[in-house]
């Protein structure tokens, strides 16, 4: 194969003719398309039958026309090209019978792929790319000439050719029957690129109801069309299709997705408002409602706070200037923000954390975690304390948390809480081992000592003595415990 190529190359190098090869891989063909506009304007004058453009015959050109001059050059190349092509097409001898002189200027060019077969082969391609444009006008030829040449690949062959990146016209598949056979062949060929190409053709040549109806029973092709419409942004057609298929939830989601492209908050809010009525599942409808409410809320907070910040009235904003606007942030981030800046506000205001909690039914766990993180960040230890303190009916206070206290400790520690604060929560960690390891890690000596005492573990307690400072209160405490005769040590 490559030998033929080499010969050919040599020929073109030695020849004064430029190679105008009527081969699928030729690049100058694509350059030809540059003259498309020019040709387009000619079309109205010459004739109005587009389809016949496919049937290009190179015989009987009126001498002296531009196309004639092409023919002169082209014919000299056909023999070698034919040879090459037939090698390429080995195994399907019927192909070789047709010269591959498909007009490059045609609707089929739309479907032209350029998969050069074995990739290394193309390395030896010698392609010229100059002086081609002049030839373009030859594509307009008297109508009668096209009639004697019929390019009729079977649907299967058409698909196979397209899979191999060859030019192939689909225009001749005009009956619905033919179109569907073509589509089914494309699907059977497993090449998504070809399936999409056929679908583009069907979409252009079939009324959409018919197209939709046929795709409903062809799931693979349907997926391709939906993906294609998503990629090309043909939202309206996509929605029509989904409606036709009764996929109402997808219709809703697909419309909802559009909000991501709306930058302006007011417009986005309006858009979301419109989304509420869409046919989501019951569960999702409430999420959409929440999304709308949240953005509405954020807009109010943002306007207020920006004013507060710029006027410099609020100490909070002066001390901790905002890093970013709260618009379009998730709910938890909004809650954190409001716990940070608006913690003490009355429940009635839109920006108060309690109001947010109620409006969005934020679970206790999530609320406590967020509030804790925000208040710890501000080192407002009293607020932290209050967060976990509950009174029972007898008036005793007790520390309770919807999350594990080890988690509380971790969050406090991350915010550099002092040992006194930390200690209190380490003590509340239920699991003894976790408590010990946390207490040791964060040097909450009292907790360690007491835990060992509770465990009656004299050896560990004695060992811990070297971890505390000499002469400190902790050391004294250890000593007094160790000397306590009341305790019945286990070791």
């Amino acid at each position: 194969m490559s030998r033929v190529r080499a010969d050919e190359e040599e020929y073109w190098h030695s020849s004064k003719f430029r190679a105008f090869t009527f081969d699928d891989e030729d690049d100058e063909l694509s350059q030809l398309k540059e003259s498309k506009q020019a040709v387009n304007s000619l079309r109205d004058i010459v004739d109005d039958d587009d389809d016949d453009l496919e049937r290009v015959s190179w015989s009987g050109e009126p001498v002296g026309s531009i196309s004639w001059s092409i023919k002169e050059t082209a014919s000299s190349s056909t023999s070698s090209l034919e040879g090459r092509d037939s090698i390429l097409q080995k195994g399907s001898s019927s192909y070789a019978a047709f010269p591959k002189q498909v007009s490059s200027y045609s609707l089929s060019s739309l479907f032209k792929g350029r998969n050069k077969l074995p990739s290394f082969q193309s390395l030896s391609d010698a392609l010229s790319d100059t002086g081609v444009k002049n030839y373009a006008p030859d594509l307009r030829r008297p109508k009668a000439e096209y009639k004697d040449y019929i390019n009729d690949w079977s649907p299967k062959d058409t698909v196979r050719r397209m899979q191999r990146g060859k030019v192939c016209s689909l225009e001749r598949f005009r009956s619905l029957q033919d179109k569907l056979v073509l589509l089914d062949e494309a699907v059977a060929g497993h090449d998504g690129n070809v399936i999409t190409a056929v679908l583009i053709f069907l979409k252009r040549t079939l009324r959409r109801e018919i197209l939709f109806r046929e795709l409903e029973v062809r799931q693979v092709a349907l997926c391709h069309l939906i993906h294609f419409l998503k990629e090309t942004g043909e939202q309206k057609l996509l929605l029509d299709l989904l409606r036709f298929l009764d996929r109402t939830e997808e219709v809703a989601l697909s419309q909802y997705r559009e909000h991501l492209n709306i930058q302006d908050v007011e417009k986005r809010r309006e858009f979301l408002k419109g989304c509420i009525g869409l046919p989501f599942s019951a569960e999702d409808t409430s999420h959409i409602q929440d999304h709308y409410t949240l953005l509405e809320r954020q807009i109010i907070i943002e306007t207020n706070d920006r004013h507060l910040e710029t006027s410099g009235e609020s100490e909070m904003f002066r001390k901790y200037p905002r890093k970013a606007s709260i618009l379009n942030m998730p709910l938890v981030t909004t809650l954190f923000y409001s716990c940070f800046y608006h913690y003490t506000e009355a429940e009635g205001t839109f920006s108060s954390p309690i109001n947010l909690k109620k409006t969005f039914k934020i679970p206790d766990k999530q609320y406590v975690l967020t509030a804790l993180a925000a208040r710890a960040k501000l080192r407002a230890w009293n607020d932290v304390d209050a967060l976990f303190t509950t009174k029972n009916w007898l008036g005793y206070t007790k520390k309770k948390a919807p999350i594990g206290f080890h988690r509380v400790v971790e969050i406090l520690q991350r915010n550099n809480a002092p040992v006194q604060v930390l200690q209190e929560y380490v003590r509340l960690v239920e699991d003894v081992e976790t408590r010990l390891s946390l207490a040791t890690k964060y040097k909450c000596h009292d907790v360690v000592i007491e835990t060992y005492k509770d465990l009656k573990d004299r050896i560990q307690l004695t060992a811990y003595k070297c971890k505390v400072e000499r002469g400190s209160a902790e050391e004294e405490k250890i000593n007094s415990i160790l000397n306590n005769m009341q305790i019945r040590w286990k070791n």
Partner: protein
Amino acid sequence: MAQRTSGAGVPSGPAPLSGVPVPAMASAGRRDAPEAPDFGILKRLARDQLIYLLEQVRAGSPGPGCRGRGCGGGGVGAGSSRCEPPARLPAAPREEGPVHRGRPDEPPGPHRQRLHTQAARGGQAVQGGDPASPQLLRPFYACEMVLEEEGVFGDVTCDEWSFYLLPLDEDIISMELPEFFRDYFLEGDHRWINSIARALQLLNSLYGPFGRAYGIGRCAKMSFELWRDLEGESEGDGQGRKPEIGNVFLMDRDTDYVTALCSQVVYEGLVDDTFRIKCGSVDFGPDVTSSDKSIKVLLNAQDKVFSQIRNEHFSSVFGFLSQKSRNLQAQYDRRRGMDIKQMKNFVSQELKGLKQEHRLLSLHIGACESIMKKKTKQDFQEMIKAEHSLLEGFDIRESTSFIEEHIDRQVSPIESLRLMCLLSITENGLVPKDYRSLKTQYLQSYGPEHLLTFHNLKRIGLLTEQAAGETLTAVESRVSKLVTDRAAGKITDAFNSLARKSNFRAISKKLGLIPRLDGEYDLKLPRDMAYVFSGAYVPLSCKIIEQVLERRGWQGLEEVVRLLNGHEFSVSDSAAEDSAEAQRVVLAVFLGGCTFSEIAALRFLGKERGCKFIFLTTAITNSARVMEAMTEARA
């Protein structure tokens, strides 16, 4: 890069794949595995073709400065040791910019933009700075349609750079198609199947013919069929050559999502999870290099330090590195007490190597430190524990509340999602109550627009809600009143198969994926592939490959195949007389990406069984990439 450096000798006798497992293996298998074929040729092919194409482009461009960025002539070839991945290529031609001026006023919509970029990613380069006048290489039909509609069709010239295969390492070839995963598994688009078939065709013609082909998954089957179809025409290409690859195994990613979703703990996987390895190289930031600049490091078998630790469990990496640094110190120290001549020798022969090793060593030590720092901050230990519980299927409640807290604390949107998916797949979907509550909290923590992400995950089957038991049984009982018991059983089966089930628990039991724990698992001396997940789980994908190779087919695995939703095949080409050596080389093809953990596990298996695995993947993946592919981007 693809030089044969492994140093393993050529094995003498034929050895069956299903040999007795060799227990100890820390350094090398007892029986030498054959070497991987030389993939350098793939690179040369791609490079030559690109140069050719660029020269074509240049021939048309009038300006000087055609030799930018080392693309002209020998630049790519002689200078750089690797091919540029396709994504980075546009930079090269863009500089000398050919000259089709398009209409700069034309704003292409985002979707069109995507088609443009897509065109660029599939082994195509977009040329010209402004999107209206790109030069596409190998366009999709859809891309051409867009160009035509935009009225720029003639102004744009298209060429294909049929760049299917990027050898990332001696044994890894990537197609660099990360979008394959979403396109195929989520959108159901078959557009890349042709590329896969062609990649197989190319490998088959260069290193084949493949004697036996196995596979599982719909895409695997289609790719295989299309490849056979293409192969039918180009008979004779690979004839008469000595085959180097005897077996090929194709697998769809959806056969095994679990493995892809696990946290990785072998070194290479951890580096990928932590720093993101891109096209075989990684950017180590200032925290690793302990200087103020980042360093780009190629991670492959050429890196003498990396090649020894890449497959190791993270816990044994420290020991290795410190041992290595002691050795290095000792070698440096030798120079004391040398005479002039010895010193001269030392400087001229050894010093450079030592310096190089020193550099690499300090980089990897830095990387380890940085990984440790990040992981302790994220309660990695706790997360691994939760993951292992999910894999084993106990303490599900506890794991669920761990995930809930993870979400509530806004630790990481991707990680939260990953854990939820892991829970869903291992449990065959979430209990409706949990699903609702986790979803709500997720939306509250990370943004309501993730509603779309959840929809995607449901569609692809990664995160589903268990069908409410009542409704199903209600229908069943009504049906069973009408028909006999046996028929009712069949109907129940049919109901069950309606939802695409993962059946992980049953498969895991069948294949013994959770090793029984008798004593401590010595991660330094692994006994099976489970070491890549701390001895807690044998990667399903690798286990399937092992089993099928051992049985030379799917016999005896019928139940597993059924649980995996079928689409298996096993074809042997009787004509291909493969040598004993080729017999022991296996091309593992992962459609939808494979992880470094899987690569490590199969490398281990190869050493055990005296065979060599080569990897062809649409892209290197990990849990984060899988999740990100499903996430709807914030605009």
